[in-house]
């Protein structure tokens, strides 16, 4: 009698890394992983460096679905969507098929925020949020040249750098004063933007795309400030929204993400969440490092040793090789004073509180090598 399985919904970094960590502790309980995708294992951060490395989607795959099933001693159901969860009955539904679980983990990820752009070409806008998206986009721009990129956040800047390095000519349109607003300070942003401009990226910061029309095989974008940009493809990188609908429909608490406590448990028993879909003690951090902390803690909890997750300092490496950048945002609610040292592109932008305690930093160019020393002095995000 093997009993009901642990069921993980999602085969991204969150789902697979949790499965890997948990299997180290429990080699016998059945494991079922349900994925809406094809179940190939890949690392999402690599979607931001694939053009510079000239990698086809297939070349980013680290293991196919059969290898993952074997490695994790798991049953994998791909191209399959969970349509409903009944937490009280510990049951989920795949259309008309019901499955009973011992515990359920939501590793659902996040959806690209979609804009409704007037014109006749809204469906020509790509988001690159998973390997299959990346594959479609690569095929769409094969032999093409001009890409309009909406969004100048972390992912927008990484794509701008990568697509340009891959030989495309990129125009960035975003309604902000400087790149990565809310994440980095103006001085660091200026250094990154200058380096990307020197690489060939055209920036149009301030306006938005107000209309997108087809023009033969190409596209014509009208900006809200009256400029017109002719391009061959449009990429939208304006942010991700945690996937919460399935949880909300099941009566689980959701806020920005699926609400979980420090043990990654949802508001009803035997349901857990981690990764981009989860809001852990009020924090929805869409990065790899917190995800890995959650995977290790949750693996222990699911193996019978209740474990609270903690986050230390979580510096984020931004993949803009034109001007390397490492960011450690100050913890939420901690205000401090920012100082700028150095000369672009090598900047040390530090945030200290009134007692002189380091709260966060932006390091650019040659200063990024100082991060290891600075990390020691940073406060934990979830102690």
């Amino acid at each position, binding site marked *: 009698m093997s009993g009901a399985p642990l069921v993980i919904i999602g085969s991204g*970094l969150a789902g697979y890394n949790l499965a890997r960590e948990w299997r180290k502790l429990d080699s016998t309980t059945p494991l079922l992983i349900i994925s809406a995708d094809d179940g190939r294992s890949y*690392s999402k*951060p*690599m979607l931001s*460096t694939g053009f510079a490395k000239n990698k086809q989607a297939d070349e980013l795959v680290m293991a196919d679905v059969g290898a993952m099933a074997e490695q994790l001693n798991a049953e994998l159901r791909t191209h399959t969507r969970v349509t409903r969860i009944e937490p009280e009955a510990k049951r989920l539904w795949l259309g008309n098929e019901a499955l009973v679980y011992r515990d359920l983990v939501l590793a659902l990820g996040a959806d690209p925020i979609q804009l409704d752009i007037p014109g006749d070409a809204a469906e020509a806008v790509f988001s690159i949020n998973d390997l299959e998206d990346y594959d479609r986009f690569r095929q769409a721009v094969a032999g093409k040249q001009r890409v309009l990129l909406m969004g100048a956040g972390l992912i927008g800047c990484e794509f701008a750098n990568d697509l340009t390095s891959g030989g495309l000519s990129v125009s960035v349109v975003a309604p902000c004063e400087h790149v990565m607003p809310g994440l980095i300070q103006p001085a660091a942003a200026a250094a990154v933007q200058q380096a990307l401009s020197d690489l060939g990226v055209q920036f149009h910061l301030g306006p938005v795309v107000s209309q997108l029309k087809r023009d033969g095989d190409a596209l014509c974008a009208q900006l809200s400030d009256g400029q017109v940009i002719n391009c061959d493809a449009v990429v939208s990188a304006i942010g991700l929204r945690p996937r919460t609908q399935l949880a909300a429909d099941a009566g689980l608490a959701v806020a920005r993400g699926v609400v979980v406590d420090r043990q990654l448990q949802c508001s009803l028993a035997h349901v857990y969440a981690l990764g981009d879909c989860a809001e852990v003690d009020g924090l929805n951090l869409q990065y*790899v490092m917190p995800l*890995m902390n959650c995977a290790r803690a949750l693996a222990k909890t699911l193996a019978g040793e209740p474990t609270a997750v903690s986050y230390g300092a979580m*510096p984020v*490496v931004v993949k803009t090789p034109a001007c390397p950048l490492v960011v450690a945002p100050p913890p939420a609610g901690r205000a401090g004073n920012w100082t700028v040292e150095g000369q672009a592109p090598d900047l040390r932008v530090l945030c200290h509180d009134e007692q002189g305690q380091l709260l966060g930093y932006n390091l650019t160019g040659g200063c990024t090598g100082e991060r*290891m020393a600075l990390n020691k002095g940073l406060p934990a995000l979830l102690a």
Partner: protein
Amino acid sequence: MSKWQCVVCGLIYDEAQGWPEDGIAAGTQWADVPEDWVCPDCGVGKADFEMIEIA
């Protein structure tokens, strides 16, 4: 000299090359890489993931 691969992102650390950008000299063995070094590609810490010896 061996090579180690990050299981999260596939990055390869080659002991023969070290990682000079982070001040890790060529020839530095994996065991001697600082515990607070983070993967340059995915940002995950050395202590937080496994590098697999691949050669």
